[in-house]
């Protein structure tokens, strides 16, 4: 699909710019853009029209690695959504440096902070983030690999690959604004259905925007957004009929968001 999307874009003379691999900086201990990174950027491209309409003012990435995603997001929103505040974090000090180089090479600006998830931002940035993107370490590994340091931090996800994801979700929920959107990469082994149910309990609707299988893994990019129908539904669990009605309502309200002309 990656290739077909490019073909689609050039056929319709729509040169949406994303980060260029040759301009992405690197370091032996920093995750290089991979299938999961490309899938996330393709999801952002597929949702571009909605993103432009959304007019976010604060966008954030957790775990920016090489900077490929945050740079692409800046370029995708580009001039059409001016004056956005972009901020990205990574626990790996080399990663934020490499991200800075990647941003510089593309001539764009984003703020970078080295920290665990969003620890030093949770208090003041709560409820302010309109778009959050996360490609977390999601590979199932023994639990002790998660905190071993080095390049393993980029992919080691502990049991079912959920260790870091399960720490990120409540933070995302805290930081997102009422109209905030979260785009997250998951692996089938992470049990994305259960993640969606978890988020549903917190009032978030979800949709898989991109699904992709490679030889090694099967990835999905999930978009989450706050849905007042679901919040009502959660409050109305005592009244099953009302609950069922608003569940259908929330499904219907998703239809206009589905991009056309895309294979999923």
């Amino acid at each position, binding site marked *: 699909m990656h290739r077909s999307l490019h073909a689609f874009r050039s056929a319709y003379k729509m040169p949406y710019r994303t980060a260029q691999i040759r301009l992405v900086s690197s370091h032996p201990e920093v995750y290089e853009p991979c299938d999961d990174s490309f899938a996330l950027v393709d999801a952002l491209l597929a949702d571009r029209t909605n993103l432009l309409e959304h007019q976010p*003012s604060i966008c954030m990435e957790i775990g920016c690695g090489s900077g490929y995603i945050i740079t692409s997001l800046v370029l995708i929103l580009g001039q059409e959504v001016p004056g956005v*505040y972009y901020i990205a974090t990574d626990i790996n000090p080399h990663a934020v440096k490499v991200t800075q180089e990647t941003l510089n090479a593309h001539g764009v600006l984003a*703020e970078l902070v080295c920290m665990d998830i969003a620890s030093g931002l949770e*208090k003041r940035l709560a409820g302010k983030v309109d778009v959050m993107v996360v490609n977390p370490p999601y590979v199932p590994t023994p639990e002790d690999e998660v905190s071993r340091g080095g390049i393993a931090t980029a992919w080691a996800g502990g049991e079912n690959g959920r260790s870091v994801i399960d720490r990120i979700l409540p933070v995302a929920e805290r930081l997102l604004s009422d109209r905030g959107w979260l785009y997250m990469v998951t692996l089938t082994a992470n049990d994305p259905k259960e993640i969606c149910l978890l988020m549903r309990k917190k009032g978030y609707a979800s949709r898989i925007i991109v699904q992709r299988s490679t030889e090694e893994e099967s990835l999905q990019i999930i978009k989450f957004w706050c849905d007042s129908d679901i919040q009502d539904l959660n409050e109305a669990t005592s009244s099953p009929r009302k609950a069922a009605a608003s569940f259908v309502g929330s499904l219907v309200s998703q239809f206009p968001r589905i991009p056309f002309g895309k294979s999923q």
Partner: protein
Amino acid sequence: MRLLTHNMLSSKIKGVSNGFPLRIEVEKVIEKQVELNPDFLKNIFPKVDWKALVEAGRTMGFAELPEEADLLMLDSSEFLSKFHHALLELHLEEGALVCPETGRKFPVNKGIPNMLLHEDEV
């Protein structure tokens, strides 16, 4: 690091009850001009802790922000350009952020704050 980022950062060291705002230690400040966007500034104004911004601006050598500000002032282009400059154009390139309660220093190198905590601080 721009002062908008400084305005969003706090110290999360174990036992610290109010880790905001972090004190700035300046070694090197740089300025990067960016286009002024009035809508963005109006949007972000209510989210900014004004006192912390004024103090941070002063530390960085920019003392032109008024001590108090309100929404009405956003109609003044002179105010907007000062607000814009302080919030988005001043960068702490080298220095440190200091926890207001413990004095612990978080280094800022090449414009990037390192807020990682040691094991005994979590």
